[in-house]
């Protein structure tokens, strides 16, 4: 009886292995990307349109673009931006274009677009997400350069990559509960938060590896600290900390008073809660907030195989114009030079995207260890 049941299992597993083998290694890292992409009809047509639009300027470009986009009549956005509903509403108020949105976490959107690309299924017209994932998509050859006068007015750190353009920035700030941290006693630096008087009053977030890597470069490369000094400070910070998962939950627990300070909140999470009346802040009434403020660009890229290339380009235009106001309403920090920027005059430091992309495991492991070792300290 035992053998009778074993034989079908083995043969079924074998069948499964063979079937999946035919399709190539499904979970291996994407290599060269879809081979058929460059020669596909979609790519040929889209690239031709992109080149034509990129070559125009001024009113001529706008007129041509709007006419062509409304003729296409549709737009498919793949995004991890949770304010997309408001952007789309504002965009559809201006243009007669039907927008479909696929939205998921940044890792999932990336997985989706890569998987579709490999299978020769071209669902996205624009790809809008975090710098890291945009970097991967560019590296895989999925994106096509966007050129316009608008792009030239984006802050410099937001237009370094050719394949995508920053539309807004996420800023990691130190936020506190104003009921628990009275005025005058606000934290002034990360070093201070690692001191014993903050024991049990601080919160770190489980996944903020990018924040950790940015501060590493700030302290080690800019301030001349040794590797050990930085790890030691972070470990002591972790030993003072309760660890939360997810910025929204962390923000809610901060305003509820579960902890006094969150070391890597998003500025928009704090600003939005404060606008609703919650007792939270990241800028003291007198004096300066904790610096440096780690910033990470979020942006948008044109997809090379777009079926609606004009609408795609028009949407990028929109994010850099009317979209900037939508971002501001949502307490986000826009990327266009000269827009009212709460970070101007503050010490900012960018997330080292390339390093993280090259060797994600080392950074993940380092942050995971620092947090766990810190918590193990008494």
């Amino acid at each position, binding site marked *: *009886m035992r053998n*009778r*049941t074993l034989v*079908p299992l083995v043969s*079924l*597993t074998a069948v*499964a*292995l063979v*079937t*999946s*083998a035919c*399709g190539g*290694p*499904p*979970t*291996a*890292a994407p290599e060269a990307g879809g081979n058929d992409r460059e020669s596909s009809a979609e790519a040929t047509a889209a690239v031709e349109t992109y080149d034509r639009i990129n070559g125009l300027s001024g009113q001529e470009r706008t007129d041509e673009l709007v006419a062509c986009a409304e003729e296409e009549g549709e737009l498919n956005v793949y995004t991890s931006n*949770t304010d997309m*509903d408001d952007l*789309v*509403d504002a965009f559809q108020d201006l243009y007669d274009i039907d927008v479909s*949105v*696929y*939205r*998921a*976490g940044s*890792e*999932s959107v990336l*997985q*989706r677009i890569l*998987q579709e690309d490999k299978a020769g*299924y071209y*669902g996205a017209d624009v790809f809008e997400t975090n710098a890291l*994932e945009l970097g*991967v998509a560019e590296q895989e050859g999925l994106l096509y350069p966007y050129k316009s006068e608008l792009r030239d007015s984006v802050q410099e750190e937001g237009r370094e990559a050719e394949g995508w353009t920053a539309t807004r920035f996420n800023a990691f700030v130190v936020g506190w509960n104003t009921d628990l941290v009275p005025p005058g006693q606000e934290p002034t630096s990360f070093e201070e938060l690692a001191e014993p008087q903050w024991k049990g009053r601080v919160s770190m977030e*489980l*996944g903020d590896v990018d924040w950790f890597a940015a501060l590493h470069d700030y302290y080690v490369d800019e301030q001349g600290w040794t590797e050990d000094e930085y790890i030691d400070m972070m470990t002591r910070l972790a030993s003072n900390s*309760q660890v*939360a*998962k*997810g910025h*929204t*939950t962390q*923000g*809610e*627990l901060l*305003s*509820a*008073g*579960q902890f006094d300070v969150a070391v890597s909140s*998003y500025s*928009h999470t704090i600003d939005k809660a404060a606008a609703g*009346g*919650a*007792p939270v802040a990241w800028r003291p009434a007198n004096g300066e907030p904790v610096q440096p403020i780690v910033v990470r660009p979020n942006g948008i890229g044109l997809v090379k195989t777009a079926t609606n290339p004009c609408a795609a380009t028009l949407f990028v235009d929109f994010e850099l114009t009317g979209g900037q106001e939508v971002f501001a309403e949502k307490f986000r920090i826009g990327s266009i030079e000269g827009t009212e920027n709460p970070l101007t005059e503050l010490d900012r430091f960018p997330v080292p995207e390339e390093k993280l*992309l090259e060797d*994600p*495991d080392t950074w*993940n492991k380092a942050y995971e260890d620092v947090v*766990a070792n810190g918590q193990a300290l008494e």
Partner: protein
Amino acid sequence: MTANLADPAVTPEELRRPDDDTPEPRAARWRWPLTPKMFIVAGVAAAIGYLALVPLGYLIWGTFFDAQGLDLGSFQRAYGDGRMGELWGNSLAFAGGAALLSITVGTTLAYLNVRTAVPFKALFFAASIVPLIVPGILYTVSWIFLASPQIGLLNAFLEPIFGAAPFNIFTIWGMIWVEGLHSSPIVFLLMVAAFRSMDPSLEESALMSGASRMQTLRKVTLPLVRPALLSSILVILITSLESFEVPALLGLQNGIYVFTSRIYFVLRSYPQDLGAAGALAVSLLAVAVIGVAVTRLLAGKGSKTYQTVTGKGFRPRPLDLGKWKPVVGVGILFYFFVTVVGPLLVLLYAALLPFYQAPSWEAFASFTFDNFAQVFEMNSAARALKNSLILGLSSAAIVMSLMAVAAWISVRSTIPGRGIVEQLSFVPLVIPGIVLGLSISFVYLRFPLPIYGTILILLIAYCTKYMPYGMRYASTSMTQISAELEESAMVSGASWWTTFRRVLLPLLSPGITAGFIYILVVSFRELSSSILLYSPGNEVLSILIWEQFENGSFNVLAAIGVLMVLALMFMVTVAYKLGAKVGLRED
């Protein structure tokens, strides 16, 4: 009751079903391959095999192979962590504790609901399901608001009596408490099905022969529902080992790490290390395969052991609680107050506030319906609700119909390899949601029919994901139905299909209803594979919930939670009433 499994003298051969020795009549039927029975059985087995092998093949391929060939590096990356021992220790303590708690709670509630004359049965039933409806993160955060040493409301209330902070939710005990309560509806539903199919005359005989109520419970009632108990333990152990919501929100706060925190880290880098995640899932697969084998062995020993639905007519009659009635009544009220009303009140309270603050006149004065208004204003809320309903109802119906046949194959038939059907149906339980999503999109992106990008792909994912639960519910009920009923129908000239439809299905209805309710409820919060597979227009409710978690307001989330509880409680009550109309009737 019969042979003891722990007895080494009993070999697996002796534990075989007696039918195995007398294959003549059935084996003879098997020689006619072109009967409807053959088509149905083969079709169901093939469907299960297909649904299970797609993600399993993908998982195994990604774990053991890379572009160059066999590669075991993923195991090194997954298990190479120096703290692995500690992580597993915490995981096992957490899962074991949660299983123990949910089984005690779920079984007690089910017994009281089905076998005793408690009042308000439908309400009692619906209330027992509530922890299942509330998404895990919401349920956990409610408990933080109740029992955190810093801000817990219960701690504040009880401080005058017990001193500062009698409860601390950020401990392994807190984790067990929350996970155990959150999982208890799975056990409750399984045990409700089991108790409803139980012949009370067995207990009555024990009582008549002088056994006390406790003795009867211990020696008669509980042994008779052993297959359901085993199924519950298996499912809860594995789901708790996989769970990351509760450990992440409660354990990490004080540095209690579990092994799923490794899965979290290997999946959050780019490229996602699916190999390492797969390597971790392989150990769960081993637990699952052994677990299913053990339950089969136990359920199989003397197939009559658990068959309480026999040719002898009976009507499950509720037990009169007598003088215990007030005690039980107060106990039930207390339980619901603590596990259902408490967290729900906190959710409702949070849903009415612009931001969370401790209760005060000032807080009450700031009550607003804005959060609810925001839910209804979301662009795709109505469509998402409709899609979730369609998917929940149809996946529950499809899974339970497939599994009713599958349970017959596994428990009742003598078809060679029938054990495999049960094993395969259990496989998706150990596949991480993201791997399930990736494997399904991988296949359907290359499939000739246009399934990718439609709601059908979500239906396939849901059927795969809930197949293990469906099988537990259906097969547990099947073990309780005596073969003699089926045989009498056949002898009277009914075909297999008629027998199945007219005799077995109605008798299986307690298990089928329970499984249906379970799938309907949990499908509403399926996220990990939905998020990869949905397309614009096919949004489901869990996607909206996720958006609020990513960057929204916890208070809007609480409003969604409250609305979900109301909607699903209504549906569960309807399903319960409908289910009670079919099959075994109570007096």
